[in-house]
C-alpha cells in the first residue's frame, strides 16, 4: 500500500470519527432539503421554463450553506495537527510533504462528495412521486454535479491553504471563509456597485460561481469554467505545499 493511500485512510477515518462531521452532514442535509422544498414550491406557484434542477441549484438558500461548508470541512486538516503536536510525529515518519498534503486534500474531497450524495435522492423521490422529469435532460444533472465537484475542488484547496497557514482552527476557518465568500460574491458586487462598468462585469463573469452554475445546471458545459477551476485547484494546492513546507525555515 502506498504511503499516500495509508495517510488518506487515516485522514478519512479522522473525519468520520469526529462528531463535527455528523453535525455538518445533518445540517447540510436539512438545509438542502428545505432548499429543494422551496425550489419546488416556487415552481408550483408560477409558470416558468426553469427545471427543478435549475431551481434547486440557483436559490440563495443553496449558496448560503454552500459557502459556509468549506471552512468547516477543511479548518482542522492542518491546524489541529500543528496544535496537538502530532505534526511532529507525522512528519518524522518517512512520508513526503506532498503525500501528506494530497492525502489531507483527498480526504476533504471525499467527505465533500459524501455530503452531496444524498441530494441525488431528492430528484429520484421527486420523479417517483410526481412522474415529472426534474430536468429537461440528463445533461442538467451531469452539468450541475460536475460543477459542484469542480467548485468543491477549488474551494477545498483554498480551505487547505488556510488551514496549513494557521495553528488555530478558528483563524483557518475565518481565513478560508473570507477568501471563498470574497471570490463568490464578487459577481454580485459588480451589480451593486454602480461605478463598475460593463467591461469589468464581463471579466468577473468568467470566474463567477453563480453564472457558472446557471449555465451548468442547464446542461451547458463551459470549458472555460472547467479550466479555471482545475488550474486554480492545482495552483492553490501547490501554494498549500509551499506554506506547509515553510514551517521548516520559519522555525515553527
Amino acid at each position, binding site marked *: *500500500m502506498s504511503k499516500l493511500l495509508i495517510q488518506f485512510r487515516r485522514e478519512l477515518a479522522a473525519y468520520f470519527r469526529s462528531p463535527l462531521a455528523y453535525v455538518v452532514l445533518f445540517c447540510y442535509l436539512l438545509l438542502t432539503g428545505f432548499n429543494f422544498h422551496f425550489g419546488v414550491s416556487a415552481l408550483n406557484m408560477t409558470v416558468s421554463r426553469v427545471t427543478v434542477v435549475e431551481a434547486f441549484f440557483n436559490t440563495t438558500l443553496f449558496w448560503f450553506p454552500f459557502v459556509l461548508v468549506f471552512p468547516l470541512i477543511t479548518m482542522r486538516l492542518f491546524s489541529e495537527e500543528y496544535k*496537538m*503536536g*502530532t505534526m*511532529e510525529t507525522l*512528519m*518524522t*515518519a*518517512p512520508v513526503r510533504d506532498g503525500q501528506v498534503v494530497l492525502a489531507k486534500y483527498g480526504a476533504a474531497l471525499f467527505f465533500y462528495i459524501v455530503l452531496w450524495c444524498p441530494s441525488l435522492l431528492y430528484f429520484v423521490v421527486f420523479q417517483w412521486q410526481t412522474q415529472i422529469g426534474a430536468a429537461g435532460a440528463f445533461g442538467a444533472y451531469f452539468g450541475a454535479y460536475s460543477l459542484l465537484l469542480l467548485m468543491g475542488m477549488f474551494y477545498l484547496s483554498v480551505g487547505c491553504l488556510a488551514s496549513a497557514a494557521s495553528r488555530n482552527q478558528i483563524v483557518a476557518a475565518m481565513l478560508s471563509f473570507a477568501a471563498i465568500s470574497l471570490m463568490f460574491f464578487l459577481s454580485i458586487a459588480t451589480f451593486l456597485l454602480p461605478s463598475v462598468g460593463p467591461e469589468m462585469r464581463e471579466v468577473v463573469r468568467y470566474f463567477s460561481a453563480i453564472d457558472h452554475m446557471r449555465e451548468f445546471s442547464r446542461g451547458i458545459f463551459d470549458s472555460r469554467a472547467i479550466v479555471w477551476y482545475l488550474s486554480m485547484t492545482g495552483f492553490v494546492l501547490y501554494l498549500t505545499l509551499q506554506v506547509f513546507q515553510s514551517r*521548516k525555515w520559519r522555525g515553527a
Partner: protein
Amino acid sequence: MIEVEQLTKRYAGLTAVKEISFHVGKGEVVGFLGPNGAGKSTTMRMLTGYLPPTSGSAKVAGFDIVTESLQVRERIGYMPENVPLYPEMRVSEYLRYRAALKGVKGRKIRDRMTDVIDLCNLGDVFYKLIGNLSKGYRQRVGLADAMIHEPELLILDEPTIGLDPNQIRQVRELILNLARHHTILLSTHILPEVEMTCGRVLILNRGKIAAVDTPQNLRKKLHQSGTVVLEAKTESLREAEKFFGRCEGVSGVIAEDVGEGWGKFEISVDEGFEGDMRQQVSALCTERGWAMRELTRRSVSLEDIFTQITRSEEALHV
C-alpha cells in the same frame, strides 16, 4: 550511527544550538542532559528531519539529515516530548497505521505489533481509545510507535517526564532492555536517569556542549573525592574545626554543634589529594581520643557536577 558536525540552529533573535559536534556509535546509549531550553529538543528535531539546521551537517546511519531525510526517517524511531497522539484512534489502530506509514510490510505488521505490545505492556489497553489513556500508557504507546518499524536508532525526548515513580522505573527498564538491540539517544533533565541508563552523557547548556563523558568519569573528573562527613565528640568544636582545617589535603571544614558535646564536621577534600580521607580522619580521632559515631564519604552526584558545569558556563557568559 550519528555524526554531527558544527550543527547550528538559529531562530529569529535566538540561537538555540551553537555549532555542536558529537558522534554516537552503534549500540551506544547516549543521554542528552541539560536545563530547559538548552537545545536538547531542537537538536533532536534536527536529527529527525523535522527542523532543518541553519548551518552545519549531520548524518544518521550514513545518510544526510537534509538531503536524504526520507532514508534517515526510515531508520529512526522518534518519540517527541509530551508524546503527541491522535486521541480519536484506538491503540491498535494507531500502531497499525504507524507501522504501515513507516513501511512495515503487510504480513509483518501483525508480528511487529505483537512484539511491541509485549515489550511495552500494552495488552490491557489494546482496544482502548488513546484519548482515554493515562499519561503512563500514552508514554508507552509513544515508545511502541517509536520502535514499531525496528529502527536502528531510537531518539527519545524526555521519555519519563510526567510519570509516577513506578512508571519511571518501568520505562527505564524498558530502555535498558532496548539498549541491547538499538542505539539510543535520549534527553532528560533528570540526572539519576542518565546515571542509570546511559553509557555516555552529553551535557548541553545554552546550545553548546558543556561536557561529554561517561557518568562515572564525569564524577571522577570534577570532584576527586568529594566531602567526608564526621560526627565526633570533641572537647571544643571550634578547636577541632581548626585542627581538621590544618590537616593535609583538606580544603575546608564546616562544623556544627549537634548537641551533648557531639559535633558534625563536613570536611571538603582537595582535588589533588591522593588516598582516603576517611582513614586519615579516623586515625586523627583515635590519636586525640575523640569518640566517633559517623564517618562517611559523600560522593558527588551528577547533580552537583551538572550545577557546577552549568554555573561556570554562566559565569563565562556574564
